[in-house]
């Protein structure tokens, strides 16, 4: 009788080992499945056709020919000149910028042009492909 009483408290304890096993498996699954993508990037925003026609102001256009140069209004400029150009355009409202790329131009350069234009305070930056 006495022996039975001594055993009883032990047998009423819940066995947590399967719970721990299950939780560990879930934990490992979520650790493996989690991909920490911390992407940094630029988001060139532009208004679509309907609203841009209301905007009478001509966008500031930059051309990227296949030669790898950067043209603005027919003359070759450097990357560092973009931001001041955009800033000088912003009279009363923030200017919109159009980047025209020819096939063969480098995406890295196009991205840098958009980056510099946004640095200069451009409101809308549009990337448009030119036909061959």
């Amino acid at each position, binding site marked *: 009788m006495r022996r039975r009483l001594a055993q009883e408290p032990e047998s009423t304890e819940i066995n947590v080992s399967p719970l721990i096993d299950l939780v560990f498996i879930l934990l490992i699954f979520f650790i493996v499945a989690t991909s920490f993508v911390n992407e940094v*990037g630029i988001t060139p925003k532009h208004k679509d056709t309907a609203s841009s026609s209301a905007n009478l102001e001509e966008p500031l256009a930059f051309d990227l020919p296949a030669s790898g140069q950067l043209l603005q209004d027919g003359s070759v400029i450097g990357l560092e000149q973009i931001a001041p150009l955009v800033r000088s355009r912003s009279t009363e409202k923030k200017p919109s910028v159009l980047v025209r790329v020819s096939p063969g131009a480098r995406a890295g350069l196009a991205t840098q042009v958009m980056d510099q234009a946004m640095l200069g305070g451009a409101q809308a930056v549009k990337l448009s492909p030119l036909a061959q």
Partner: protein
Amino acid sequence: MKRRNRQLESNESDAINVSPLIDVVFILLIFFIVSATFVTLPGIEVTRPQAVTGKALEKNAVIFALSGENEIKYAGSTVQMEEIPTLVEQASKDRGKPVVIQVDRWADASILAKIVAQARKKSSEVSIATRKPRA
């Protein structure tokens, strides 16, 4: 009789108390469940162009990649330009997920412009992945 009782007691105290372990593991589990965002990665690594105005982008995005060989990658396979709007629509499931394009700096810019235009048909926010220039 007395000796026996003592043995029983020492046996009980020998068992390791696992409750703090379970607590910690549960907290870790909850952290990983909450932070888990299941994004499909394009499956290639590109050299991102540098940009100073780059901001942290939404983690839960539809990610495309444009390789240096001008191939459009999505979820590990090469896709065609025309498939992009369909893929964006399928992936975002009416929740309006943003689109992120990982572009190689040596890729063709006109293809990038076309991808942006295609993705814009279905998503209001299309970003280009960049990296911070080293100071």
